[in-house]
C-alpha cells in the first residue's frame, strides 16, 4: 500500500487522493467512501551523539498542494511533570497524518505522566520506547498513520534514537530521517553520519579500498548536518519548508531552537 511507503520517488507524492479506495465498479460509476487518513507532509530527523541527541523537524503542515500552516511543530517534549514540560527528558517526533500524530503524542505523554505518578521517577528512554511500540501495535488494524522517532539519553548518558513504523516495529539507531523527504535525507545521513561509501584514497588496489573509520560527531557537526539536510530537502520536496524546529537533548535538559527555512 502506497500509504505505508516512505518513498515518494517510487510511488509518486503521498497525497491522500492517490490512496483512495480502488473501485471494482464499472467505468463511470463511482463509489464514495470516507477516508480517515491524509498525509500532512513534512519531514523529521534525529541523530544520536556521544552524550547528546539532536531531533529536528520542519514546521510546515500541508494538505494536497495547500499549505495549511507554516508553524505546526512536529517535535514534542514528553513526560515532564507539568504541561509546559520544563523537566522533560524525552522528545518525540511525529510525521505523517497530523491528527494521528497529535493523538499518539498525547497518549504517550499521559502514560509517562501516570508512570511518574505511580513510581515517583521519570520513565527511561528505553522503557518509553518499548511502550510507544506497544501503543502503536495496539492499533495494528486501524493504525496511527504516523512515523515516530523517539530521542533521549540512555542509562549510560549516551544519545539514543528509536525509530518506528506506523504499526510499532522499532529499533535503536544512530540516526534516522522520517516523513516526506526521508528518502532524500537518509542517504545523505548514511554518508555523513555513518561514513558509508567513504574510503581512504590510495589505501588499496582497485576497489579494495579501506573504509574511512567511524568516529562520533560533535554537537556542532551534527547541528550543521541537520541544517544542510533540511536545506536540501526544502529545495527538492514541496511539502517541506517554512521553519526548522530543532531540539538538543543533553544531561542538562532540552534546548530548543527555531530557524527559518524557505517558504516557497
Amino acid at each position, binding site marked *: 500500500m502506497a500509504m505505508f511507503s516512505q518513498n515518494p520517488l517510487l510511488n509518486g507524492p503521498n497525497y491522500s487522493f492517490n490512496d483512495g479506495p480502488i473501485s471494482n465498479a464499472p467505468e463511470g460509476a463511482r463509489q464514495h467512501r470516507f477516508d480517515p487518513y491524509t498525509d500532512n507532509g513534512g519531514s523529521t530527523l534525529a541523530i544520536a551523539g556521544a552524550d547528546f541527541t539532536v531531533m529536528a523537524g520542519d514546521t510546515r503542515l500541508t494538505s494536497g498542494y495547500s499549505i495549511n500552516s507554516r508553524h505546526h511543530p512536529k517535535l514534542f517534549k514528553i513526560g515532564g*511533570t*507539568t*504541561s509546559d514540560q520544563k523537566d522533560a527528558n524525552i522528545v518525540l517526533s511525529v510525521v505523517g497524518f497530523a491528527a494521528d500524530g497529535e493523538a499518539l503524542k*498525547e497518549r504517550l505523554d*499521559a502514560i509517562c*505522566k*501516570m508512570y511518574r*505518578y505511580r513510581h515517583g521517577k521519570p520513565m527511561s528512554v528505553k522503557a518509553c520506547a518499548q511502550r510507544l511500540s506497544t501503543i502503536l501495535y495496539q492499533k495494528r488494524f486501524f493504525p496511527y498513520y504516523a512515523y515516530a522517532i523517539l530521542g533521549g539519553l540512555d542509562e549510560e548518558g549516551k544519545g539514543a534514537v528509536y525509530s518506528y513504523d506506523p504499526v510499532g516495529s522499532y529499533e535503536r539507531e544512530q540516526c534516522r530521517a522520517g516523513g516526506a523527504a526521508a528518502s532524500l535525507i537518509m542517504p545523505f545521513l548514511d554518508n555523513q553520519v555513518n561514513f558509508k561509501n567513504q574510503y581512504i584514497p590510495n589505501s588499496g588496489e582497485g576497489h579494495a579500498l579501506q573504509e574511512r573509520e567511524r568516529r562520533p560527531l560533535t554537537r556542532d557537526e551534527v547541528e550543521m548536518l541537520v541544517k544542510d539536510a533540511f536545506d536540501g530537502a526544502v529545495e527538492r520536496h514541496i511539502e517541506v519548508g517554512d521553519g526548522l524546529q530543532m531540539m538538543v537533548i543533553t544531561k542538562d535538559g532540552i534546548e530548543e531552537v527555531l530557524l527559518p527555512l524557505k517558504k516557497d
Partner: protein
Amino acid sequence: MFRNNYDNDSVTFSPQGRIFQVEYAAEAVKQGSVVVGIASKTHAVLVAIKRNAEELSSYQKKLFPIDEHVGIAIAGLTSDARVLSNFMKQQCLGHRLTYGRNMPVRTLVEMIGSKAQVNTQHYGKRPYGVGLLVAGVDEQGPHLFEFQPSGMTEEMVAFAIGARSQMARTYLEKNIDKFADCDREELIRHGLRALKESLVQDRELTVDNTSVGVSGVVKADDGSTKVEPFRVYDGQEVTAWIESVADDKEGGAGATEGESMEVDS
C-alpha cells in the same frame, strides 16, 4: 456492641433522622493525624503531621499531588484516599486532554463529592473513611476545599481536619483576617503554627513528621500570572520553616480545652 439497630447499613435513617454509618465514617477522619490548609489571595498551602506506626517504621504520607495545580491532604483511611486520589488524577488528566486547561478546583471537588454521596445511598456500599483538604489554583485564583465522607464539600478560607484538629481550627479562627494578604512564607508559617496547636504535650514538629504542600499564582515580570505547580516538601526541605516557628508563642493560649482523645501517638 451495637449502639442501636439503625447502624447496620448506610441506607437506613434512625428515628432521629441520622445515618449512623455516615457518622461513623466521619469518626474515621478524626482518627487520622491532623492536616491544616489555608488559602490566601495568591497561594493555597497544606501542612500535615505524619505518623509512624512504631519507631522503626517509616512515616505515613499525608500530602499527595493530584495534578500540576492541585494537591490533597488526607486524614483517615489512607487506602480509601488512594482510590479518591487516583480518581481525581484521572479526571484532571482527562480534562487537560480534552480542554487543554487546568481543571477548575471546584469542579474537581464536586466530582468526588458526588462520588462519595453515592456510597451513602446504596445498600451494601460503604462511605469513604477519609476526609480531604483539597488545595489548588485555577483561573479564579487559589482555593481550599474541605471534603467529608458524607459527600459534603465546602470552600474554606482555612481549615483543619483530623485528630485534635479543634485546636488548630481555634488558631485559624483567631487569625482568619490575616490570611488573605499573607505571602507564601507567612502562609506556610501560619499553617505550621496551627499544626503545633494540635500536637500532644511533649511532641514537636520535626523534619521527619512534617509535610508542607504549596501551590499558587505568581506574577511574572511582564504582568502576566503563572501557576506555581503544587509541590510537596518533606524532610530537610522543611527545616527552615520549622525553625522559623520554633519559639514563637503566637496564639498559644486558649488551647487547653478541646477533645481529650489520645490518638496522636
